């Protein structure tokens, strides 16, 4: 008996060890990916830095990476950096939430009810063919250049991808799964909550991610059209004060924060969709 227990425990530890080994292998592969992926950017940065120091690129056109970094650090030290990042992120998130909320309500409505589709969808499709930035003057006229017009603009940008993905998710739910629900006598509400919602979740999350991406695009437009704070304001400031390092600093910050928020959504997506049978994870 004791022997058997001992054996079991060795088997268990062995299993544990092999699992840990698997994880190690996975981690070292990840490290390899990161190293491989960063070789070219690092080389480019070094070349850029050297060429700038040799004054091949004039500093008033393209400052060295170290200067750009210095600008960011400087902004951080005088404390204005957080204000700029904060207000821009706030605008994106507010627009994102607003656009998503409207898209969820309209999208579910249009997805579930054929009548609603016939009523709303042609109009929404027509609006979709208007480049969203064309609304800018109208929004400014209606709401001034304060926060409401900016957030509305971003919301418009976020709305379409989320809306379209919700509808295609709902329409694309496998009829065969719905039949299983019907055989089990689910009522309409249960059909929606137990089958249609989970089945359209992947599409919804895809919509959220592309919506967020557009949100970051639109915040630039919104802040370019007039703002006293924000990363987009830094762009304008850099242009007006002829300091390309400010512009580059702002661009880099946009990239970092945009990537960060997308990464958060990606983690949520991976958690929520762990059941999906996919070949590649994007």
């Amino acid at each position: 008996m004791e022997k058997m227990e001992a054996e079991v425990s060795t088997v268990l530890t062995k299993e544990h060890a092999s699992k840990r080994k698997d994880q190690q292998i996975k981690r070292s592969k990840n490290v390899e990916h990161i190293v491989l992926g960063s070789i070219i950017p690092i080389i480019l940065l070094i070349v850029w830095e050297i060429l700038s120091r040799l004054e091949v690129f004039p500093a008033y056109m393209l400052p060295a990476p170290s200067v750009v970094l210095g600008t960011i650090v400087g902004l951080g030290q005088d404390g204005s950096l957080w204000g700029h990042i904060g207000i821009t992120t706030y605008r994106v998130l507010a627009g994102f939430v607003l656009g998503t909320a409207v898209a969820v309500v309209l999208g579910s409505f249009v997805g579930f009810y054929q009548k609603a589709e016939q009523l709303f969808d042609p109009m929404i499709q027509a609006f979709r063919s208007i480049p969203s930035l064309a609304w800018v003057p109208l929004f400014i006229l209606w709401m001034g250049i304060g926060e409401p017009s900016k957030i509305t603009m971003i919301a418009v940008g976020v709305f379409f991808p989320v809306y379209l993905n919700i509808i295609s998710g709902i329409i694309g739910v496998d009829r065969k799964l719905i039949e299983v629900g019907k055989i089990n006598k689910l009522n309409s509400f249960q059909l929606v909550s137990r089958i249609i919602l989970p089945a359209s979740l992947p599409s919804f999350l895809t919509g959220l991610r592309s919506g967020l991406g557009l949100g970051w695009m639109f915040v630039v437009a919104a802040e370019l059209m007039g703002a006293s704070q924000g990363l987009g304001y830094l762009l304008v400031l850099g242009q007006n004060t002829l300091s390309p390092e400010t512009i580059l600093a702002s661009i880099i910050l946009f990239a970092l924060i945009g990537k960060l928020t997308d990464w958060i959504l990606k983690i949520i997506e991976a958690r929520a969709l762990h059941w999906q049978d996919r070949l590649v994870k994007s």
Partner: protein
Amino acid sequence: MSLELRNVGRTFAGKQAVRDVSFSAKQGKIIGLLGTSGCGKSTLLRAISGLDSEYDGEIAVNGAITRDIQDEIGFIFQEPRLFPWLTVLDNVTFGLKGTKNEKEKLGKMYLKNVGLADSAKLYPKQLSGGMAQRVAIARALVTSPEILLLDEPFSALDAFTKMQLQDLLLDIWETYQSTIVIVTHDIDEATYLCDRIIILRGQPGEIDKEIGINEQRPRARGSKLLAELKTEILESLDLNRAEESVN
């Protein structure tokens, strides 16, 4: 529950898939549907279940004509149709009502019956084809339905598992006296399980032949009677082939 089909047919976009099928089954009878691919067997099951209500003719359940989805019905589809976002156990308990504890207890019992006791926590993407089909079988049987419609339920399984599950089906039938309609391509399975075998033929499919089997269950697999029945069925299928080649 008793079941009666009167002149049931189905036309898809102007093309008849199956026509003029009539048969009846008293409560607790097992009916087998046999026939070549595309002759409308799945279509008939869908009509009986009420999932499809666009058929011609009438279907009566317990004497009442209806086109709605039946209460107390179990359907094993030709494909597993599992919900990919639910674990195996949650898939099995999908149609159950009651407290979580009760549901899980029952679900685990049926998972054990189909030989998947260890797989309760897996997700469908982690299952093999036969495992997925067995989960679907457990999901349909766990509700102990009064009418059971089975569309080639065991076709994805190895011979041994298949026999075990046929016996499981008979256990459930004995306990609940379910009325069963089973589509199968396996003649041995049909002769082992059914009180009556209905052979469909042609396009559009029609009833070609009905064979009754008045043998007590459990039947001996490979008994002389079943072997004779098999020859009879094979001959009638063979006959069809000869006719088709003439056409």
